[in-house]
């Protein structure tokens, strides 16, 4: 089944066109990687997909689970199963991780007309999920991302993904700032969610993460659109040849 369908997407930030005719189809269970040089607008794509203010769709359309999402509020997209692991997760002083996760899970359950979770059961579950990602009980009491190292932030993103169980997770530079051990932990967390139905869209600058989360499709993104698509061997080729061989139109 088609999960995400992007058709001739054009999008602007502050009146400047960043995405210029992007096409992409992601089916259930597929893992796609979008690779591109810095400044190509990869993060812009993640913000357009999630509906961030200031990121305006000027042409084309995005369908998620068959619905046009242009007019869907941010939280509705999330509750429909679209998840974004941010490149730079935001600090929220005064809100503990547990409180934050509980609000998110209950908002999601409310959206699907399910009763709120029992706090005790919820905490038990989060602690279990946390363990796999090396997040202990003390860390769960800390305020969201406040004073976290780069690795801790990315592990917390992975925990949120594990708890919320999205249909499509966009991982925006999920490995930036991680050493090899931390990256393995995050990759294991992400891989644990792959059940043949959930899909991933990995946005990355380097091929490194793709050694641990194997993609079915690799797309090279430059100047606002996908310039080349292939299987995972394309990522390896890219690593050897560099972006310049692909983005100048002579790839």
């Amino acid at each position, binding site marked *: 089944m088609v999960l995400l369908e992007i058709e001739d997407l054009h999008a602007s930030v502050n009146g400047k066109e960043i995405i210029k005719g992007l096409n992409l189809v992601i089916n259930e269970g597929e893992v796609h990687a979008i690779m591109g040089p810095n400044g190509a607008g990869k993060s812009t794509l993640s913000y357009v997909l*999630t509906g*961030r*203010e200031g990121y305006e769709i000027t042409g084309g359309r995005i369908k998620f689970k068959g619905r046009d999402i242009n007019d869907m*509020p*941010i*939280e509705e*997209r*999330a*509750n429909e199963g679209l*998840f*974004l692991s*941010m490149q730079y*997760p*935001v*600090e*929220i*002083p*005064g*809100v503990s991780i547990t*409180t*934050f996760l509980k*609000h*998110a899970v209950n*908002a*999601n359950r409310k*959206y699907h007309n399910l009763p709120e979770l029992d706090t005790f059961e919820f905490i038990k579950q989060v602690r279990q999920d946390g363990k796999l990602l090396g997040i202990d009980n003390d860390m769960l009491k800390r305020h969201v991302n406040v004073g976290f190292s780069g690795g801790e932030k990315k592990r917390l993103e992975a925990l*949120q993904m594990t708890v*919320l169980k999205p249909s499509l997770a966009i991982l925006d530079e999920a490995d930036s700032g991680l050493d090899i051990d931390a990256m393995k932990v995050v990759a294991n967390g992400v891989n644990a969610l792959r059940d043949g139905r959930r899909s991933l869209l990995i946005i990355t600058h380097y091929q490194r993460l793709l050694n641990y989360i194997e993609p079915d499709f690799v797309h090279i993104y430059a100047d606002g659109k996908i310039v080349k698509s292939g299987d995972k061997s394309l990522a390896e080729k890219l690593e050897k040849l560099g972006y310049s061989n692909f983005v100048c139109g002579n790839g």
Partner: protein
Amino acid sequence: MAGLFDRFAVVKGAAYFKLLASRAREIFDSRGIPTAKTEEWKYTKPRGLDVDNYEKSAVQFMYDFEEIPIDAYRLEFINGRLNQNFDMPEEIRVESIFMAPEELFGHLADINKNPFVALNTANIEEGVFIRITSTLKKPLLITYKTSVNNTNLFSNIRNLILVEEGVSSEIVEYFTYAGNEKSEYFNNIVNEICIKDNARLSHYKIQEEAFKANHIAYNAALVGYKSYYKSLCVQKGANLARNETEVRLADENAATDVDAAYIMNGWATIDTTTWIEHLYPRTYSNQLVKGVVGGQAKGVFQGRISIPRDMVGVEGNQLHKALLLSDMAEVDVKPELEIYADDVKCSHGAATGVLDERQLFYMRIRGISEEEAKQMLIDAYLDDVLSKIDNNALYSWVRDRIK
């Protein structure tokens, strides 16, 4: 500490209260309600207050009032009158304010300095003299209930609280109303508080008056040797509200924390005014005031710290922060540091901001609605102050009330 009172002029005699009231009447009549030209009142303008247009007592309407669900000894005022039906333990002596010792009454809250203290003193009808003689097992909760229909009540309540040597105590004041929410009643409250040596008082106040009401309160505390006064005031009601706290740190190692939180909407003005006087070397004060202002409302903070000559080793810190929720919301801040001594540590800071779009986005991409995300951020913002409430039951209740 006795020597300290010698500095205040004491009017002796049985007619003391009457005499003070008539002096106060003269002062108020000659000065009137302060205008914007009065420095202390330039941000909070009580110009709409016509004290002759209020009624001093009225028929009581029977309503169900909000009660704070904590384990406490309880006193209540209904429409400015003390409910005589109360049970107090031996360690809390409650008497009429007219039984208050003359060497204290009228010496902490000065009729010459504040027009509303003068107004209160001139109109004093009701109030309690509370003496806490040994450490309390649970807090004393004083609830001020206004039950209003179409009358505009004017209540002047005057209390004197005396915490005896070595005693540790907690008092919670709660202002609430029932009935016509558009009533423009006026509560003018003065608390004189004396904390003797080696004693402690935690004084919490929650102000939830009706949205067109006026609430002006003056709290004057005197803190003795090695004693501690904690004042924490949460204001969210009234059209015009001012909570003024004056703390005199009168002996070595006297310390105070004066914290406040306010959250408001509509057209309200909520004012937090503090004056910390370090009257002895090695005295300590800390203040954290945080506000959330929406609509066309106005938050005011005036914080004065006085450190006279030779008051060495004093520490005084003050921080005010406000969150503006709308373009029309306003915050006025006036810190005043009067430092005449060397070898002191004193700091003050003020910051005003808006809700962070990045934080809202981050919460919404996790499925939390915009409204709920804003509320969570506001709760978190004010929690820096509210988490200083040591009484857990009170803390949980207050956190729910600010929603």
